[in-house]
């Protein structure tokens, strides 16, 4: 071994040095968790964007540019891949979140608001509340009675179909479950897949569960079940799954290996008769096919509740806990509440509708007009299973429970036991 003339540090200095080295090595890993948002200069607002697909991304960027022109402020856009944004929200909100950031209404918003991770927007709401219906205000309000979200756009869930296919075969829109089953049976004998179905991504099947649940048990039961106050092993949930089991033979097979885009294409190609999804299904349709697309509300199952509830998730924007530019952030949120901003965005994505009741609907296509009407007529609006319940329950227990049921409908008892057990753990823990 060659001798090596190094200065002789004493032991403590050496230890300090080593620990500093270890710390420095560990830091980049930790620093990578936060984002580089949080602009602190007075003329810049940072904006956390989850619209990573090119078309909506360009649309929201255009909206932000027009805000820059109006306000003289700069907006620094920080875009993350859509699913990743949701997955990292926890670290993001605790790290250095952007001043204004994209999120969803409902329990999913309240969960973080109640943890004190997002900013109180009551003062912004006092200026913009005349532009929103009471239901939207309610969907933006946490349990402390304060608002934490500015709604931006909204889209309804419904059963979509191609008008031309239906006219050609003389199908009628079913109003009740029995008519629905009769229609599906007829489609099957006509060689169509009655109901297109895809569950590879884990969430589309939640839409089917929600519709059956509030049609059978009503809006309030949906809310309570999602809040962990009802029993997944009780007779009411059991009836939902029994009804679903009756309908499963009409659903496209191998759903667990299919993404919703593929199912939408089978509807577009006229191979499937119907498809329950959000109105974003129209993104898979081009040109004249979009005008051929229509939808109806899920048929009535229990006369007591009729068709009084519509699933219409709201996308909106929140403010971070300690924005770098509080003044600018509030101005931007106020701007996002204007019909002009919302309509500018919808030009690029004409499958959703504006949440502002001042929005001019004359530029809407037929689908948007119908969507707006359906939402307006609804007595109750739900957000969607994964937005109405605790994220800890939705992302694991609910997704995998529904998957297991779809895989083996006869195994419903053990599926429901698993879901009930996990609900107990999560909602009481």
């Amino acid at each position, binding site marked *: 071994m060659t001798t090596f*003339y190094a200065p002789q540090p004493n032991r403590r200095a050496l230890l300090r040095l080593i620990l500093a080295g270890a710390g420095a090595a560990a830091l980049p890993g930790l620093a990578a968790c936060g984002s580089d948002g949080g602009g602190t200069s007075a003329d810049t607002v940072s904006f956390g964007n989850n619209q990573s697909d090119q078309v909506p991304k360009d649309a929201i960027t255009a909206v932000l540019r027009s805000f820059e022109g109006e306000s003289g402020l700069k907006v620094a856009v920080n875009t993350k891949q859509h699913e990743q944004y949701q997955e990292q929200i926890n670290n993001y909100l605790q790290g250095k979140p952007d001043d204004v950031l994209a999120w969803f209404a409902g329990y999913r918003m309240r969960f973080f608001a109640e943890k004190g991770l997002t900013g109180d927007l009551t003062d912004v709401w006092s200026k913009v509340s005349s532009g929103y219906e009471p239901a939207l205000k309610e969907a933006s309000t946490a349990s402390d009675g304060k608002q934490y979200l500015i709604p931006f756009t909204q889209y309804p869930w419904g059963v979509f179909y191609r008008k031309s296919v239906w006219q050609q075969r003389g199908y009628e829109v079913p109003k009740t479950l029995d008519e629905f089953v009769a229609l599906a049976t007829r489609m099957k004998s006509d060689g169509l897949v009655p109901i297109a179905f895809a569950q590879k991504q884990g969430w589309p099947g939640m839409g089917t569960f929600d519709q059956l649940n509030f049609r059978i048990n009503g809006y309030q039961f949906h809310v309570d079940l999602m809040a962990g106050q009802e029993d997944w092993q009780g007779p009411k949930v059991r009836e939902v799954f029994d009804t679903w089991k009756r309908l499963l033979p009409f659903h496209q097979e191998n759903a667990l290996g299919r993404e919703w885009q593929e199912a939408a294409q089978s509807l577009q190609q006229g191979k499937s008769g119907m498809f329950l999804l959000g109105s974003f299904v129209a993104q898979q349709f081009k040109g004249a096919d979009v005008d051929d697309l229509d939808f109806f509300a899920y048929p009535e199952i229990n006369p007591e509740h009729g068709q009084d509830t519509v699933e219409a998730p709201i996308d909106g924007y929140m403010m971070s806990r300690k924005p770098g530019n509080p003044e600018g952030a509030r101005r931007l949120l106020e701007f996002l509440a204007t019909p002009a901003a919302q309509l500018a965005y919808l030009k690029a994505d004409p499958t959703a509708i504006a949440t502002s009741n001042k929005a001019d609907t004359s530029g809407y296509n037929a689908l948007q007009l119908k969507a707006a009407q359906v939402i307006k007529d609804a007595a109750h609006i739900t957000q969607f299973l994964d937005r109405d319940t605790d994220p800890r329950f939705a992302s694991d227990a609910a997704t995998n429970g529904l998957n297991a049921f779809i895989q083996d409908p006869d195994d419903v008892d053990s599926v429901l036991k698993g879901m009930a057990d*996990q609900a107990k753990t999560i909602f009481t823990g």
Partner: protein
Amino acid sequence: MTATQNPPRTAGTAGAPRPPSRRRRATALAGREKLVLGLMLGIPSLLHIALVWVPALGSVALSFSSWDGIGGFGDIRWVGASNYVDIVTSYPRFWPAVRNNLLWLLFLLVVPTVVGLLLAVLLDRQLRFGRVYQSVLYLPMVLSLALVGFIWQLVYQPEQGLLNNVLGTAATDPVNWLGDPDINLYAVLVAAGWRHTGYIMLLYLAGLKAVDPALKEAAALDGANAWQTFFRVTFPVLKPVNVVVLVVTVIEGLRAFDIVYVINKGRNGLELLSVLVTDNIIGESSRIGWGSALAVVLLVISLGFIVTYLFQVFREEDPA
């Protein structure tokens, strides 16, 4: 990668057991050398402890909490062992994951190892184009497992996939290779094994290159046939390689994650412990306590293998 040979032990008279002598301090290093040595061992050790053991023990501690990753240490609620109780009693995905992990490990230990060894022996025979075959067989190893997942999805797709079209079942009754929970694990294991085999082959090939031809010649002179030569002479010489293969395979088997995550997020028959940990810790749900408990289970399984392996190694180093 080659196995490090055991350092030659201090010379003793071979054969006759010596009375155990008190070991003298064999080194007489100058102070400066001690410092250099200390630094060279100390810094990596400290880094290792800080980046591996502290987080690992931290996970063990957090597994007794119901922390959701929000707020500081003051907000952590301690729940005792209830995470573990809930996991084994009321978490439907847990037991399938354990079963799949063990199946994964067994499969990798058997199939790619045997096939890899066979290929290595065949390629060791100076075939024409041997180099080409080697490269082709090793190629999957340079791909990430996530990419392997993508490639095999093209093979396994029900309607457009290669396999069903070759079998002629695509149009009539497509087999849902990745969607059917009874078979998808095996389909994925084939894909993982396809990649792993090349790796094992290369390790054995390196080992075979080190086998002294004189041994084979001696065996041939003694009238051993090819089988006997292989099993009695070559294979025992490959022992250090076998250890490396075993360790590598166990590591690969327990850390399997990316391929199933790419295919279907590790759901519906492809549950693995690593996926459950990720699902619960990363992601919106952020059940740090619960996920840590799952991670501890994985750690215990890994430690079981590691400890067994270390026992073997140290026992060999100890004189019998």
